[in-house]
């Protein structure tokens, strides 16, 4: 009843095409954004920002990137960690070695470098898919982490860990948690909008056509090679930027080894749990994967389990959740949400 669609007719393609055609959805988004921009900076503690909001936002961006590749274009990648590392380390090297490089330009450039790397390691997708492709993307994961640990990339740091330089954008130095949060928030929102536009456009349809039946896609003129590589490129750009944000605005330290294969799995879980082929799903999945360990360690604390045991239970629980989602709801949380919306539309009637 609250979610009625009736009475909201579209009289032009423009209106039908709008991202949030329903008034209720527009109001919800407005409220969420208002809270995000106005309320949280005033109210949230540093703990909440650092343990919850920052990982959530940055992982959401990485998940959007991976969803483009896996959910929309039907490929698979276990190299997400490696690509995040490429973004972070590239940005660091650019800023370190090119004096007076504007920060935003450096970040963008790091994104493009990651994009190019993604295309190179996406080449096998032209000949293989599924498991085979998953294994070759592991090649990317292991090779890139090794490569980025070579002394040159870290400017011969003795510890193997480098510190992110201070960054300022147009004179505004970003160093408090709230400032970092706002910067990340803006970046993530802007990039999500771009992603949404892309997936609803010709490009998005090309990707989905390749995903659903690449043989048929060819007969309408879609070139599988170019389209798949394009998906890798765009996806890697997003993931690279996520890596930059992770290193610069979250941790402050850049350590290639921290972007290990388990990061790749984590982002893949976010995409599966949140919903393949759904931008919203990427956010839902990221929230889930970020919150779950915190919930588990809270429970573990109550039950008196040690932190190591909590970590093991976490591993086990993720495995179980993956299975549950794949068995019961392969379309993830996003689908559950849209079903719930349908129910709300007709509530209080059952059908």
């Amino acid at each position, binding site marked *: 009843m609250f979610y009625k669609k009736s009475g909201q007719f579209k009289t032009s393609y423009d209106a039908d095409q709008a991202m949030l055609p329903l008034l209720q959805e527009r109001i919800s988004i407005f409220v969420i954004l208002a809270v995000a921009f106005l309320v949280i900076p005033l109210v949230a503690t540093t703990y909440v920002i650092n343990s919850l909001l920052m990982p959530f936002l940055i992982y959401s961006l990485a998940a959007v990137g991976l969803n483009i590749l896996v959910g929309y274009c039907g490929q698979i990648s276990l190299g997400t960690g490696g690509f995040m590392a490429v973004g972070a380390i590239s940005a660091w090297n650019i800023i370190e070695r090119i004096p007076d490089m504007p920060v935003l330009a450096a970040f963008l450039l790091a994104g493009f470098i990651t994009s190019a790397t993604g295309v190179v*390691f996406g*080449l096998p997708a032209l000949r293989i898919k599924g498991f*085979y492709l998953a294994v070759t993307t*592991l090649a990317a994961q292991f090779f890139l982490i090794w490569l980025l640990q070579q002394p040159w990339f870290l400017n011969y740091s003795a510890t193997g860990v480098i510190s992110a330089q201070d960054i300022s954008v147009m004179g505004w130095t970003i160093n408090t948690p709230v400032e970092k949060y706002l910067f990340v928030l803006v970046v993530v929102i802007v990039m999500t909008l771009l992603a949404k536009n892309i997936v609803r456009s010709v490009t998005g349809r090309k990707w989905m056509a390749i995903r659903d039946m690449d043989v048929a896609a060819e007969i309408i003129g879609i070139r599988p090679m170019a389209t798949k590589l394009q998906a890798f490129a765009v996806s890697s750009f997003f993931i690279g930027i996520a890596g930059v944000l992770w290193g610069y605005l979250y941790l402050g330290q850049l350590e290639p080894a921290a972007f290990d294969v388990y990061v790749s*799995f984590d982002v893949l879980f976010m995409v599966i749990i949140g919903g393949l082929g759904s931008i919203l799903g990427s956010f839902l999945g990221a929230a889930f994967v970020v919150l779950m360990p915190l919930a588990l360690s809270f429970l573990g604390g109550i039950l008196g389990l040690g932190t190591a045991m909590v970590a*093991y239970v976490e591993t*086990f*629980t993720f495995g*179980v959740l993956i299975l549950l989602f794949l068995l019961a709801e392969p379309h993830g949380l996003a689908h559950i949400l849209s079903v719930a919306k349908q129910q709300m539309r007709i509530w209080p009637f059952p059908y």
Partner: protein
Amino acid sequence: MTFFIEVVITGLLGGLMYSTVGLGFVLIFKASGIFNFAQPVMVLFAAMFIAGLNQEFGIPLWQAIPLVALLMIGVAWVIERFVLRPMVNQEPILTFMATIGIFFILLGLAEMFWGSENRTLNVGIPRGPVFIGDILLQSYRVYSSIIGFIVVLLVVLFTQKTKMGRVLRAVADDHQAAQAVGIRLTTVWWVVWSIAGLIAIVAAIIWGGSIGVQPIMVDVAFKAFPVLLLGGLTSIPGVIIAGLIIGAGESVANVYLGPLIGGGIGNWFPYIIAMVFMLYRPQGLFGEKIIERI
């Protein structure tokens, strides 16, 4: 020159150890078309349970191993009943992701039971150097490869000579035809995953004795994947030969190339070999060509 031969042969022997891990994967794939991403973790799981029972509960190895064998058969049953059967109509990519789920379940369980400390798993395979002519080798590797080779022979004998083996080959060839003659796929899958579990025990023993039993074993067992890609996922001779190639290649690269570019290349070298090979021949050395008809 002798040194070079030593490096190569050591690599060949090591490669056979990878093949042993991959063998279970090939069986599962042939019989059910499923890519078992959890295969490396099955090795760790078996290793940790054997070592754990042995060291935490004092159960002698010759008892622990059969117990874990029963455990693996039980695990196979659970997997078949609760994962494979419900997912039978799903697209392969989703089933593949389900095996990633199994990966984490088994990993988590093993750690929950036994923690993550390093344990030993010593069944008494002789160590120490051995000389074959002029060439110095590790006797452990020699024996491990022989064991691995015997396992392969047993598997081949099983599939060729026994009734169940024939059934497996029928299922691998054509699911529907097999069902049409009354073969129950669910039973076959349970058998195949059990065998894969038993092979994992062998791999667990030889790897456990070599590098110790701890979660990092998974990283090593992971290298079975490039071996599988190179060999072709449907071929037992393929996984052997690919293991030899990757083992030798990795060994040579580690010794001769590694120092030039920074060391520690063993982690990714097999993967890059597989990746480059996939660009030219996706079916691997001996796999069946993947044809898509409209």
